[in-house]
């Protein structure tokens, strides 16, 4: 078994003058301090990013550590949920005792999201010349197909953004905290129909870190360990036109199924869910694929502010990528918030007596998925 023993964000939002390495050093130090550890305790390093040809080499050099196990798995925004599974396997195999998972981005300050080379090679040669803005255009294609097959409406998509903003209003670290209405989402600037600006995640700076430890090392940490109960991952495609079914996220289905099977739980056992919300449609597809509702029922499921504070299904209690933070890749943050909820550190946004949490990431253009199930009590 393995446990999360420390979590932290770096500065978030706008961090002018800070580098991605500074942000990660800040988050790593804070997460290790929560665990009563220092960088000298880290055996294994997990990271994903684009700040060097080998992000792991540069980050470890900068931090002054010599990992004896390293993993640079990059499958998009869900890389960090995948890292938890890989670290769990390594700890269970006795390969290392303390793993640092870190991420940082200065995307907002860099304004770098859509810079691309003029030559379209490999699979990109069949998509990039058409001018689809990515990733938003790909998610728009999925949303349009979901609306066509199941009658999902823009109002239902907007319910997700509205509920998520309500959670953000309870999180002082959230970037956007002013309440919004369904009408505001519908009237916001169109990007790629049917998705408008308020259907889309933020572009911020920021970073985060998560420390995983073996049961031995977790035995005397200052904060109660949060146990990794289940993990699953899958990826199905790279190019949006190669997605097997645009109205159904099969990678998420496989990841979620594996995670629930590992621990022998069902969606009904989850007390709080932190689900990567790159776009409003991502949440609806994820809730269906993870089994919280049936296929095609996601729009109805989120209606009536069911996922808002006080609703029947507490979802994205930090305010999500839609309203709290989204520095390029968001996957480290569902892990941080799920851990805080299970420790009872949620403050105004705490879900009462949360014992089992789900942290789910989706990457690429609905390409990849990794699901982690966390528990307050030692298995």
């Amino acid at each position, binding site marked *: 078994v393995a446990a999360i023993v420390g979590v932290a964000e770096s500065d978030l939002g706008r961090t002018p003058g800070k580098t991605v390495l500074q942000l990660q050093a800040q988050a790593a130090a804070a997460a290790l301090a929560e665990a009563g550890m220092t960088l000298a305790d880290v055996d294994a390093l997990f990271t994903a990013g684009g700040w060097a040809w080998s992000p792991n080499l540069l980050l470890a050099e900068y931090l002054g550590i010599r990992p004896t196990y390293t993993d640079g798995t990059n499958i998009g925004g869900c890389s960090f949920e995948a890292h938890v599974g890989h670290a769990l396997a390594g700890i269970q195999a006795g390969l290392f005792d303390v793993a640092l998972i870190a991420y940082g981005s200065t995307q907002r300050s860099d304004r770098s999201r859509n810079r691309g080379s003029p030559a379209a090679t490999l699979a990109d040669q069949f998509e990039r010349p058409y001018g689809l*803005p990515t990733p938003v255009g790909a998610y728009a294609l999925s949303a349009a197909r979901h609306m066509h097959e199941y009658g999902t409406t823009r109002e239902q998509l907007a319910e997700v953004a509205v509920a998520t903003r309500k959670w953000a209003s309870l999180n002082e670290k959230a970037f956007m905290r002013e309440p919004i209405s369904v009408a505001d989402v519908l009237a916001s600037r169109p990007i790629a*129909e049917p998705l408008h600006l308020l259907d889309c995640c933020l572009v911020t700076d920021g970073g985060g870190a998560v420390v995983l430890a073996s049961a031995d090392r977790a035995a005397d940490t200052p904060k109660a360990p949060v146990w990794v109960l289940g993990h699953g991952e899958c990826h199905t495609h790279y190019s949006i036109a190669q997605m097997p079914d645009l109205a159904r996220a099969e990678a998420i289905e496989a990841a979620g199924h594996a995670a629930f099977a590992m621990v022998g739980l069902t969606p009904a056992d989850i007390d709080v869910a932190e689900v990567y919300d790159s776009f409003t449609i991502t949440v609806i597809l994820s809730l269906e694929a993870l089994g919280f509702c049936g296929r095609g029922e996601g729009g109805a499921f989120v209606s009536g502010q069911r996922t808002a504070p006080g609703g029947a299904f507490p979802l994205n209690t930090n305010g999500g990528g839609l309203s709290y933070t989204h520095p390029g890749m968001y996957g480290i943050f569902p892990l941080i918030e799920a851990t805080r909820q299970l420790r009872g550190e949620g403050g105004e946004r705490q879900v009462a007596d949360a014992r089992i949490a789900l942290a789910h990431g989706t990457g690429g253009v609905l390409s990849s998925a990794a699901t982690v199930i966390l528990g307050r009590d030692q298995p």
Partner: protein
Amino acid sequence: MSSPGPIPRPVPDGDSRPYWEGIARGELRIQRCDACERYVFYPRALCPHCHAEALTWVAASGTATIYSYTVVRQAFGPFAGQVSFVVAVVELAEGVRMLSRLTGVEVGADGGVPSTVAIGAPVRVTFATLEPGAESEEPFALPYFRLA
């Protein structure tokens, strides 16, 4: 903001050269697996369905239906000045899907498109010649689709 730069130019390679040679001549070519007889797009060295390494180039019929589409209202780089335009995933009669532009469609100021633009609507391939936007670059052809 940095300069918009040229339109990303497809780089033909060991898999795709016959495809782009066909496009330049006004022929949409795809592959078919000799082993499982399924069609394959984009071009590969092996069949993604059965993994046989026996693919044969064939001319596609050029007919397709709209599998999904989006009206792009905000685009980036060299495409920013083209909004609004329609990008679609089309399903060829042979069963494979590809991303493309839906051309010949009037997009209203509110992003609206005629009701004939719909998922399931029949479309047909057409060939567009693009000027990449940089003086040093030669024009190149892309397959677009229009309502049939």
